[in-house]
C-alpha cells in the first residue's frame, strides 16, 4: 500500500489553505484528493463579492478568492492533486479508499486532514409538511443552477430560513428577473450576516418575516404555494395567524451540517447534534494525526475564517509529522 506523509481530503478553501500551510511549515509530501474535476469547491458557484475582506484586505468574488489559492497550489510541486477522486472508506489507521474513473485506490496517510466542508439542511430535516412536488431546492442547489448551469429554477420564490446562502439567493433571483415574495425566519433574528440582510433583502424591498414558520407546502406536480403562520417564543404556531403565499419555488436555507460521515466511519467521536467532531482544541479529533479543518470542523460564517482555520490545521499536521518522525 502506498503511504503518504500528508493526505488532505477536499480542495475547497479549507483543503487548499491547509495544503499551502503544511508546505510552508515544511511538509514535503502532500496528496490532495478532490471529488470534483476542479479545485475551489463551493467557492466556484459563489459569484457574489464579499470574500477576502478579512484575509486579503480586498473585496473578491468566490472564484477570485479560490483562484488565489489555486495559483499558489499549482506552483508547489510537492502538492500532488488527484481530482475526480471520491473517498468512500476511512479507517482509524488513516487508510483511505477512493474511487476514480477507471480505478479504486487505497492510500495510507501518516497524517490526515479532512476538509470535507458541509452540506445544507434539507426540507426533510426541518420536517416541513405538505406535498413533494418539483420546485423545492436547497439554496445552494439553486445557486449552482443559476450561476454554473445558467438555468433559472423558478419565477416566484419563497425562501425558508435566513441563512446566508438564502439571503444571497434572494438578491440573485431578483437580479434574474424572478420575484422573491418572502423570506420566512422562525427565529426573532437573522441566521445570516447583517450585511447580507441589508444588501440582499432590505435593499430590494423583499419582505422578511421573523417569528414565522412554514406550515405546509402545496402543489401536485409543481409547487403552487406555502402556508405560513406566526410563532410564539416557544416556536409554536399562533392560532389564527395563518396565511398563504402563492409561489412556484421554495428555497430551503436553514443552516449547514458538517459532512463528517467519513471520520465517523473511522471512529472519530462526533457530536450528534452538530455533526462536528468532539474536540477541545481547534482541528484536533479523538484520533491522533487525524485533523479536521474548515466547515467540517465547525460551520463558519466566512470563507476567510475557513482559511485561517486551515492555516492552523496545516501547521498542526506539520508538527505532528515532525514529532512522529
Amino acid at each position: 500500500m502506498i503511504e503518504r506523509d500528508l493526505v488532505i481530503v477536499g480542495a475547497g478553501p479549507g483543503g487548499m489553505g491547509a495544503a499551502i500551510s503544511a508546505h510552508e511549515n515544511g511538509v514535503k509530501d502532500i496528496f490532495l484528493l478532490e471529488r470534483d474535476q476542479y479545485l475551489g469547491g463551493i467557492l466556484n458557484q459563489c459569484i457574489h463579492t464579499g470574500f477576502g475582506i478579512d484575509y486579503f484586505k480586498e473585496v473578491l468574488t468566490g472564484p477570485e478568492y479560490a483562484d488565489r489559492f489555486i495559483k499558489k497550489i499549482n506552483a508547489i510541486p510537492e502538492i500532488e492533486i488527484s481530482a475526480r477522486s471520491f473517498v468512500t472508506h476511512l479507517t482509524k489507521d488513516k487508510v483511505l479508499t477512493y474511487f476514480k474513473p477507471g480505478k479504486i485506490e487505497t492510500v495510507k496517510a501518516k497524517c490526515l486532514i479532512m476538509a470535507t466542508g458541509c452540506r445544507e439542511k434539507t426540507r426533510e430535516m426541518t420536517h416541513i409538511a405538505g406535498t413533494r412536488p418539483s420546485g423545492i431546492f436547497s439554496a445552494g442547489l439553486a445557486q449552482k443552477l443559476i450561476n454554473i448551469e445558467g438555468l433559472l429554477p423558478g419565477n416566484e420564490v419563497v425562501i425558508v430560513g435566513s441563512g446566508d446562502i438564502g439571503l444571497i439567493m434572494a438578491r440573485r433571483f431578483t437580479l434574474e428577473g424572478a420575484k422573491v415574495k418572502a423570506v420566512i425566519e422562525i427565529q426573532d433574528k437573522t441566521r445570516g450576516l447583517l450585511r447580507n440582510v441589508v444588501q440582499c433583502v432590505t435593499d430590494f424591498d423583499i419582505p422578511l418575516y421573523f417569528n414565522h414558520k412554514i406550515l405546509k407546502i402545496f402543489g401536485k406536480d409543481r409547487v403552487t404555494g406555502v402556508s405560513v403562520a406566526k410563532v410564539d417564543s416557544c416556536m409554536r404556531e399562533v392560532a389564527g395567524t395563518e396565511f398563504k403565499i402563492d409561489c412556484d419555488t421554495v428555497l430551503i436555507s436553514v443552516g449547514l451540517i458538517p459532512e463528517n460521515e467519513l471520520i465517523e466511519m473511522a471512529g472519530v467521536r462526533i457530536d450528534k447534534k452538530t455533526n462536528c467532531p468532539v474536540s477541545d482544541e481547534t482541528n484536533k479529533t479523538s484520533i491522533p494525526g487525524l485533523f479536521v479543518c474548515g466547515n467540517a470542523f465547525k460551520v463558519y460564517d466566512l470563507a476567510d475564517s475557513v482559511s485561517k482555520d486551515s492555516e492552523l490545521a496545516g501547521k498542526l499536521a506539520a508538527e505532528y509529522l515532525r514529532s512522529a518522525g
Partner: protein
Amino acid sequence: MKIYDVIIIGAGVVGTAIGRELSRYKLDTALLEKETELAFGVSKSNSGIIHPGTQNPPGSLKGRLCVQGNILTRKISMELGVDFKETGELIVAFTEEEKLRLYGLKKEGESLGVPRLEIVDSSWLRKNEPNLNKEAIAALFAPTAGIISPYRLVYDLSENAARNGVELFTETKVEAIEKKEYFEISTSMGVFRARFLINAAGLFADDVSGMLGIDDFKITPRKGEEFLLDKKKEYLANHLIFPLPARTSKGVLVIKTADGNPIIGPTAEDIEDKDDLSTTDEGLKKVLADAKKLIPSIDERDIIAYFAGLRPVSGNDFIIRHEEKAPGFINVAGIQSPGLTAAPAIALMARDLLKENGLALKKKLMFHSHRKKTIHLFAAPIKKARALIKKDPGYGDIVCRCEMVSAKEVEGAVDRGAKTMDGIKFRTRAQAGRCHGSFCTTRLMKILSEKTNTPLKEITKRGRGSEIVKKDRGDD
C-alpha cells in the same frame, strides 16, 4: 388497427406481474399506464415487505394469495435479478393479554398455510433483536417474511415482459371504454382495441370499471405516511418489527428495506382525494411515538425523507373476478396490503380467469425467463467494485455521494427506460440520500438530457408539469 389479445390497464406491480406472466404465451399483450413512468402510482410508496401471510383473515383471498406470492416472489426475484432478502418478522407483545393474541394470530396464520411460525420469548428477543424495547415479553416470529425494492421489482418485471413481447405505453390515460365486438379503449394517446381487458388501475380501478357500467365497488384511498431513516441506521433492527395489528392496518412498523434505509410508518387514514400525497405534522408525531415504542433509540434527527402513499382499499379483501356483464373484462381491484407480496399469485389467478373465459393460452417456444441483474455499486463488495471499474471506468465516476451511485449506473437506468429524475432515483437511489440531491441534481439532469436528447429545461421530476427549472438562459 391492431387488435390485442389482452390489454392491461395500470403498470404498477400488479399490472406488470400480470404482463410478465402473460408474456409466456403466444399473445399480443399491451400495458397502458397514465403516468410518465411505471410504478409511479401506488407501487412507488410501497414499503417493500414480502409478507409471510400472517395478519390476514382465515379464508380470505388476500391471505391465500399472500402465502402463495411469498413463495413465488423468491423464484421471480432470482429470475429477474432483484434482491430479495428473507429477514423474518416479529409481531411484538408487551402484555400478557397481547401475548394471548399472538397465539390467535399464529393459529390464523397456520390455517392459511404460513410456515414455521413460532412464539418467541423475551430472552430470545434480547439475543436476536437487541434494540427492541426491553418491555417486550414475547413475539410471533415469522421467518419467511422478507424485503424487496418495490419499484425495482416493477421495473424489472416490465423489462422482462417487454423483452418477451409485451408492449408498454406510458402517458396513456384511459378515458372511455366501450364493449363492441372488441373492447375499444379511448386514451390520451388514441384508441386501443383488445379481446380481453384487465383492470389493474389501482386507486382508479373503480373509475375504470365504471366505464363499462360495473360500479358495485368503490376504491377508498387509505393514506399512509412513512418516514425514512439515514442509512447509518441500517442495523437498527434485524427483523421487520410489527406491533399487534389494528383494525384498519398493521400499525406503525419498523421496516428494513432493500436499500438499507429503515422506514418507520405507515399511518392509516381513509381519505377522499386520490391525489393527496401530502404528509402532516400529526403523522410524523404519531409515527415517531409509535415507532419509539418498538425501538426506543429511534431519533427524530435520523429522519432523512418522508412521503405518503395511498392504498387502494375496497372492503376488506381483494376483488379479482371476471365480469359477466362485460365478458372478457377482469377486475383486479382493491389490491391493498399485502398486494406486493401477492402480485405474482394474482398474476396466475388473472391468467386462469382469462383461460376460463375463452382465451387460448399457448406457451411460446422461447420465453426469456431471466434478465441480467442490475448492478448497484452500493451493494457491491469492494472486490467486485474494483473489477467493475476496471471493466468500465464509468463505475468509478461517483455522481451521488450520499448513496454511492456512479455515472454508469445512472446511464444504465436511462437506457432501461428512466425518463424523469424520480425514475432515476427509484432505479439507482441517486438523490435518495441525506442531501436530497443538493449535490447531484445538476449532473443527473445533464446525463438525462444528453441521453434522451431533451433540453435541460424540459427535464422533469416525474412527468409533464413537474419541470425542474423554469428557464434556460442560454435560450435568451
